[in-house]
């Protein structure tokens, strides 16, 4: 086994005060000026840490408040109250809801797995990845000394051409089977949201290099990253003119929307030792494209979903798309020779695990990288109004730390999912739908008979 993969997070505090769900509003009118104000007794020292005079303190305390309600319930004149931040509620866009954004910010700051008490607080199930649960094992352990022990769980995956056998003939002809192992089943891709400045790109590039993963970008962006990072890049081709004169990227990505057959042939000729990926947008007929691509010799497929993680021409979710590709390749008997990458709608660590369960080898993370830099998805940048988080002014070091922290938290969360299932290698998770529980199936199995009301029966009102 390769040596244990560790990501070392370094605290990267927010540059702006983050929005939180609710804050405190304290009125001054009617204040009794108690000698010991309840605010001074805050268990979390919220008021003290802000260095506010408790008597004069009238403004709202944003993200520091931990919602214990002690001051609200103790003020003798009932002058302290909670109130929601409308800005928080309106923030985001599915699947990056305000809660998901807040969670990403927290992970990007500390690099730690989000932990909370008092059980689960969200909806029973939901669309997309929220209609799946993952399995656990009562007695099978993945390792002898815990998921963070000396025996470890591998999250490494292989990208590239994986022939089921080698032939002497091919070897003597110098045919290569390019293959790259990355220690994390996550690759970076530039988000479609937000302007991307050179500082940001430098930061992401450095993070990708530190993590040992790849970053996919267009030729126009290549000059912005440090030369050392070039070997961790995948270049997205816009046209055949692009093919010449880049430095030395690790891979090339061709879109199936272009004349990919020609592009692939010329790319393969010029760069026989590089990974060549075909990016296929999820829409009607995508499976046929992939089948043809296989016949053509392409061994890396990138299925691309929309920002929301759905098909471009229907409401189907990316998980259905991945499943279809996986099963078609299985039917063709070639699944193990092909690497399937997926992008779009990956907002949380659990989405990575679930995409892999559906049949992907690895996923691209894009918008989440932007959100890690305090993006609120307000899309003011698209209207060329200033960015409230002023992301472009952030230093490359801070950008890199925030991205590394997010990946550190995601890596540990993947370990939690794998550990619970008793699996020691993420490659074994691929396509394991038997270790997932699907909402539709369970609903049908459990509640199918509970749909009739007979004469003389009535439903209890809630």
């Amino acid at each position, binding site marked *: 086994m390769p040596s244990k993969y560790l990501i070392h997070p370094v605290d990267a505090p927010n540059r702006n005060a983050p929005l939180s769900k609710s804050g405190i509003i304290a009125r001054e009118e009617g204040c009794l000026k108690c000698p010991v104000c309840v605010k001074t007794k805050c*268990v979390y020292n919220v008021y003290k840490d802000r260095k506010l005079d408790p008597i004069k303190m009238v403004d709202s305390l944003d993200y520091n408040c*931990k919602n214990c309600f002690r001051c609200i*319930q103790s003020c003798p004149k*009932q002058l302290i109250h909670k109130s929601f931040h409308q800005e928080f509620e309106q923030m985001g866009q599915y699947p990056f809801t305000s809660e998901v954004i807040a969670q990403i910010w927290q992970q990007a700051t500390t690099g730690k797995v989000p*932990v909370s*008490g008092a059980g689960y607080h969200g*909806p029973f199930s939901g669309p997309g990845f929220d209609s799946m649960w993952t399995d656990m094992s009562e007695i099978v352990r993945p390792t002898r000394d815990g998921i963070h022990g000396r025996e470890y769980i591998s999250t490494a995956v292989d990208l590239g051409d994986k022939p089921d056998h080698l032939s002497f003939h091919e070897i003597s002809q110098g045919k290569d089977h390019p293959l790259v192992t990355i220690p994390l089943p996550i690759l970076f891709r530039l988000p479609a949201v937000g302007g991307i400045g050179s500082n940001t790109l430098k930061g992401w590039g450095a993070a990708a290099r530190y993590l040992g993963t790849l970053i996919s970008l267009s030729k126009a962006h290549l000059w912005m990253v440090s030369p050392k990072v070039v070997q961790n890049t995948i270049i997205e081709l816009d046209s055949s003119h692009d093919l010449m004169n880049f430095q030395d990227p690790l891979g090339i990505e061709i879109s199936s929307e272009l004349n990919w057959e020609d592009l692939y042939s010329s790319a393969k000729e010029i760069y026989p030792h590089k990974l060549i990926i075909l990016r296929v947008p999820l829409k009607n007929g995508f499976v046929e494209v992939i089948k043809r691509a296989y016949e053509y010799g392409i061994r890396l497929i990138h299925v691309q979903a929309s920002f929301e993680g759905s098909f471009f021409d229907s409401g189907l979710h990316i998980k259905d798309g991945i499943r279809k590709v996986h099963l078609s390749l299985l039917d063709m008997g070639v699944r193990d020779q092909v690497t399937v990458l997926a992008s779009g709608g990956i907002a949380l660590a659990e989405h990575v695990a679930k995409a892999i369960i559906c049949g992907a080898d690895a996923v691209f993370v894009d918008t989440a990288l932007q959100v890690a830099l305090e993006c609120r998805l307000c899309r003011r940048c698209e209207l060329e109004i200033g960015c409230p988080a002023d992301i472009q002014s952030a230093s490359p070091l801070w950008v890199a730390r925030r991205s590394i922290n997010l990946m550190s938290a995601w890596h540990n969360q993947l370990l*939690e999912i794998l550990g619970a299932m008793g699996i020691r290698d993420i490659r074994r998770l691929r396509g394991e739908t038997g270790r997932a529980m699907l909402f539709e199936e*369970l609903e049908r199995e459990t509640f199918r008979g509970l*749909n009739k009301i007979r004469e003389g029966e009535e439903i209890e009102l809630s």
Partner: protein
Amino acid sequence: MSSVSGITPVITPSRFRNPISKYTFYRSKDCIACGRCAQVCKYGVHKIQRKTVRTVLPQYCVGKDCPNPCHKECPKGALHIEINPDFTALGDLRWTPDLIVSTWFMAETGEPPKGGLEYKVGDSKGGFDRLRFKFKSGIQRAVEELREDEIDLSVPLNRRDDGSFKLVMEIPFYGGGMSYGSVSINTMVSRMRAAKILGTFCSTGEGGYPEEIKPYDDHVITQVATGLFGVREETIKRVRFMEFKYAQGAKPGLGGHLLGDKVTESVARMREAVPGFPLFSPFPFHSVYSVEDHKKHVDWIKSINPKIVVAVKVSTPVDVDMVAIGSYYAGAHVVHLDGSYGGTGAAPDIAKKNIAMPIEYAVPKVHRYLVNEGVRDRITIIASGGIRTAHDAAKIIALGADGVCIGTADLVALECVRCRNCESGRGCARGIATTDPELTGLISVDWGTQRIVNMYVAWCKILKDILKKLGMKSIKELVGQKDCLVHLDHMETNYK
């Protein structure tokens, strides 16, 4: 029959001077202190004190369900009622503000809410929250005449003829494991005392057996979990009921973790560990890799205390039915299924949301399987993990459980606001899940005990009401009666 009918609730108000009520009142300067509002309100919300009118018990207001609302009676139009903004800031989709405040109402009064609060379901848009009881209009009358104490809520825990204690819990609830260390000693003793008063049991959790709970030995479930913290032969001999914790719903397949901050001198002594260092309870039992190994475990316990009743607490994987049957064949009396949406202590969010199945799916699956195997009447199924209300309990029993295990609702009765910061700093700001001496002092054992007893007294009233409407005399009749339920999302579906 049921001892709970004999318990008179004692009014036990909030510890804080400002209770959070759903409705809040504003009096303008036009108020002439005529006292009309106090006069019309039969819930005692308003009171005349020293020639002024004050709102003293806003938490008793039934809001929209009030037959003659005070604010409409006010001759000067000076009284306004509104939804309290602090109330709306409480809770979440599973524990809505309504559920939290109605649980507080029950813990204060021992009565189900009289109106204005949704105390039956939350807003999670699935599972319990979309299941409803359906009642036959005719049947109710036949049992309507029954007195409350004639309806039986007791659940036998030992259905094997193996010479072990024939334990029965008088109400279909027992207290889930919350260890000394994760919760304060006052919280722990309150729960144990309440269990004794109610004629049921409460688990120690994995953190040892503090001397303070010794008076309640007969009502203690001693937990043997993977870290074996505080497990001694002596504590196993002391009790009549023990549980093996294989996994827990909130972090299935992952171990427990008590942060260093919470490991105080006394916690460390109890757990035979060093103060200030975090304690990991590993996953899984490092001596159990098969049903045979599990049998060996049960035999070990039985060699220490031959008559002890054994529960096995497991989570809800894909093959939860196999786990249950395995537990049965290894000699367990009780299989305790802990669904994925519950838990009280700190756990990774990813685990709580994604790993293992919700209890609403697991219980019917296990029930069906054990019936088909012909052993259902020899083992007791206890369900937990996201059971918040008496209605949730009744629903899961109708889906196939015999009884339920409660954790979070007990804490809400002690005025937990579900801020979810159990793990941070000095621990719970409300004095529940903490080992900080000052914060622990926020709860007195008497107050805590009575709040928990009150809540269960109210729950039993609700359960008896449901049973009456179904024409049943015993909670045992409800087990597995799925036909009493409809699922609102499936009403439109035509299954072949």
